[in-house]
C-alpha cells in the first residue's frame, strides 16, 4: 500500500541527552568537513571532495533509525554517513590523505569510504550505482531471514537514472527491506531539479512503484529522525521498501572544483538561514533543553577529536608499493 505523508509536524519532544547526541553528531560532521576543506586547500587532501554542509540533519536523523546490524550504501558525498555510522574520524581522514590506515587502505579516498565493521558499503561515485547494490543486500537479508534493513542514500540527480527505477521496481516486486533515502538538495552538480525532472515531486515517483513514501523537511533533524524511525519500523514490520525524500540544501559548491555559476548567492543565503545546526540549537535553547555552555562543551570536544584525527592521519603511513595490486583479487579461494 502506498502512503504519502508530507512534513507531518509533530511538536518536537526530545530529552536532553538525545538533543546533545544529535547536536554533537551534526557538529562533528560540520567541523570535520571544515577541516577537510582546509586540508584540501593545504593540498593534504586531493582528488574530488564533496562536502555536506547544510545537509547534516539528513545523515544524522536517518541513521538514528538503524541498528548496528543494518547496512548503509552511500554516494561520493558520504563523509557524514560514514562518520555518523561509526567510522572513526581518524580513519576517514587517513583515507583522504591516502594512507594505509585509512578505512579503505588509501585505495578509495574521499569518494570511496568503506567499512566492514559498521556494514558501510560505500562510497559509490557512480550516480545511481548504489541503488541496485542496496536492493541485493536486502535480498540477501530476506533470503537468509536476517530481519535487517539496508539504507541507501542518493541525491535527486540519481532519480533520473534508470537504476533508480529498476531498483524501486525490484524492491517493491520482491518486497525487500530497503530504506531509500533521497537527499533532495535541489541541484545535481549545476543542474536544478526543475531542469532535470518532468515530475518534480520525487516522492510521487516512488509512490508510482507502490513503494510507501514520505517527504520530510531535511533541515530539521528531529523531523528527519521521526520520519526515518517511522520508515524503519514500517520496513521491519512489513518487510517492504520505503522511500524517504529529505528536502535539503547544500551550502557549499558541489565539489571543491565548482565555481558555482548556476545559482544566486541570495538563494544560498536564504537557505543558510535554515541551517540545521543553528536552528536546532536555537530551538533547544528556546525550550530550555540546551544552554550555551552545552554547545561550547560539544564544540570543544569535537575540536579535540578532530585535532587528534588530523594528527593521526598525519602520522599514518603509506601503503608499500609492493602491495599496489593487492586486493585486485582475493588472496585465497575459500569455502
Amino acid at each position: 500500500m502506498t502512503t504519502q505523508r508530507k512534513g507531518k509536524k509533530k511538536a518536537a519532544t526530545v530529552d536532553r541527552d538525545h538533543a546533545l547526541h544529535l547536536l554533537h553528531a551534526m557538529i562533528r560532521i560540520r567541523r570535520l568537513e571544515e577541516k577537510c576543506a582546509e586540508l584540501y586547500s593545504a593540498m593534504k587532501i586531493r582528488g574530488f571532495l564533496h562536502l555536506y554542509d547544510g545537509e547534516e540533519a539528513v545523515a544524522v536523523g536517518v541513521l538514528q533509525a538503524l541498528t548496528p546490524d543494518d547496512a548503509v550504501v552511500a554516494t561520493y558525498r558520504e563523509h557524514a554517513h560514514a562518520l555518523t555510522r561509526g567510522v572513526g574520524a581518524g580513519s576517514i581522514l587517513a583515507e583522504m590523505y591516502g594512507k594505509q590506515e585509512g578505512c579503505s587502505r588509501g585505495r578509495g579516498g574521499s569518494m570511496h569510504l568503506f567499512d566492514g565493521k559498521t556494514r558501510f558499503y560505500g562510497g559509490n561515485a557512480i550516480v545511481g550505482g548504489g541503488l541496485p547494490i542496496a536492493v541485493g543486500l536486502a535480498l540477501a537479508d530476506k533470503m537468509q531471514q536476517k530481519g535487517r534493513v539496508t539504507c541507501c542514500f542518493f541525491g535527486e540527480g540519481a532519480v533520473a537514472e534508470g537504476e533508480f527505477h529498476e531498483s524501486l521496481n525490484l524492491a517493491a516486486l520482491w518486497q525487500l527491506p530497503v530504506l531509500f533515502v533521497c537527499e533532495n538538495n535541489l541541484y545535481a552538480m549545476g543542474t536544478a531539479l526543475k531542469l532535470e525532472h518532468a515530475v518534480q515531486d520525487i516522492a510521487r515517483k516512488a509512490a508510482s512503484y507502490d513503494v510507501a513514501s514520505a517527504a520530510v523537511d531535511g533541515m530539521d533533524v528531529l523531523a528527519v529522525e521521526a520520519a526515518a524511525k517511522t520508515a524503519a519500523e514500517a520496513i521491519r514490520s512489513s518487510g517492504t521498501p520505503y522511500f524517504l525524500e529529505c528536502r535539503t540544501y547544500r551550502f557549499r559548491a558541489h565539489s571543491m572544483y565548482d565555481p558555482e555559476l548556476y545559482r544566486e548567492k541570495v538563494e544560498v543565503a536564504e537557505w543558510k538561514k535554515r541551517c540545521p545546526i543553528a536552528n536546532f540549537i536555537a530551538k533547544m535553547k528556546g525550550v530550555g533543553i540546551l544552554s550555551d555552555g552545552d554547545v561550547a562543551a560539544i564544540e570543544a570536544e569535537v575540536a579535540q577529536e578532530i585535532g587528534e584525527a588530523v594528527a593521526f592521519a598525519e602520522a599514518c603511513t603509506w601503503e608499500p608499493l609492493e602491495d599496489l595490486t593487492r586486493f585486485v583479487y582475493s588472496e585465497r579461494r575459500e569455502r
Partner: protein
Amino acid sequence: MTSDDKAPRKITYREAVREAIREALQKDERVFLMGEDVGRYGGCFAVSKGLLAEFGPERIRDTPLSESGFVGAGIGAALGGMRPIVEVMTVNFSLLAADQIINNASLYLYMSGGQFNVPIVIRMATGGGRQLAAQHSRSLEGWYAHIPGIKVLSPATIEDARGMLWTALEDPDPVLIFENSGLYNMEGTLAPDAGPVDIDRAYVRREGKDLTILTHSASLFKSLDAAEILARQGIDVEVIDLRTLRPLDERTFLTSIARTHRALIVDEGWRSGGISAEIAARIMEGVFYELDAPVQRLCSVEAPMPYAKHMEDAVLPQTDKIVDLVRKMVGADG
C-alpha cells in the same frame, strides 16, 4: 548403482550447464539463480528448464527486464552473504549492466582495501553463427577480459560446461562465464563422476609439433577440425584451449610455442584491441626469439554481424580459413 552408471553418458552442453547449476543449488543453500525468464520460461536457451519446479521461485528467480538492476542486486546479494548465479540472456544485453559489472563488481574489493569481496557468478550467452544479426551476435568476452578484478571463463567443452561453475562459485571474486550459444546443442560424453574443474589453466586439447593454435570456445572445435585435416597433409598442429581469458594462463601457451615455434590465434572477437592482440603481445614479450614465423591471428571480420548466412559465415573464423593460414605459416604452399 548398476554398472551402466559408470559408463560415460551422452549429454549436451546445455544439459551439462543445467546439471552444474542443479548441483550447485543442491550443495549450497546460499546459491540461487536469477535472470530474465530463467524460471517459468525455462531460460531463453532452455538451460534452466525444470529447475523452477525442483527448487521453487525463491531460488530460481525470474527478474524483470532490468539488467543493471538485477545484476547490481546480484552483486549486493553476494556482498550480503549469498552466492548468486546471475544469468544475462546474452552478452549483448550485458552492456546495460556494464556499469554494475565494471564499476561495482570489479572494484569493491580493491576500493574497500580488501574488506568487501563479491562472490558472484554471471553467466551469459555469447557468439554469432545463428543468423541473429548484429544486436544478438556479439562476442565481447575479450572486452570483459580487459578489466582487472573480474575473472572471465570461456568453457568450450562439455566437461568445462559441467565443471567450471562450481569452481567459479567457490571463487571469492566476481566470475563471468561466457557460454557460446552455438554450443548448447553440442552433444558429447561425460564421465559419470564428472565434477568441478580448475579455472586457472589453459589445456592442450591436441598435441602437435609444427605450430600452436591458441583458441577458446566454439572456435576450439573448428581448430581441432582443421588440425585433423592438416594432419592428413603431414602438418602436426597443437591446439590449446585458453579456457580462461582473465587471468590468462600464459605459461601453458608460451611453453607450447617454445616447442612448436609458430603461433596462430583463433578468436571470434575482433582483432583491433581484442584478446588476440593481447595474446600476440605476450608471445612477443615471452618467446620472441623462439619464433620461426610472425604470430598470426584469425579473428572475425571487423564488421557488425550480418544476417545473411553466407555473409555471417564469411565474418566468423572457419575451419578452411584456419587450414589455409596454417599452411602458409609452415610454408607448405611454396
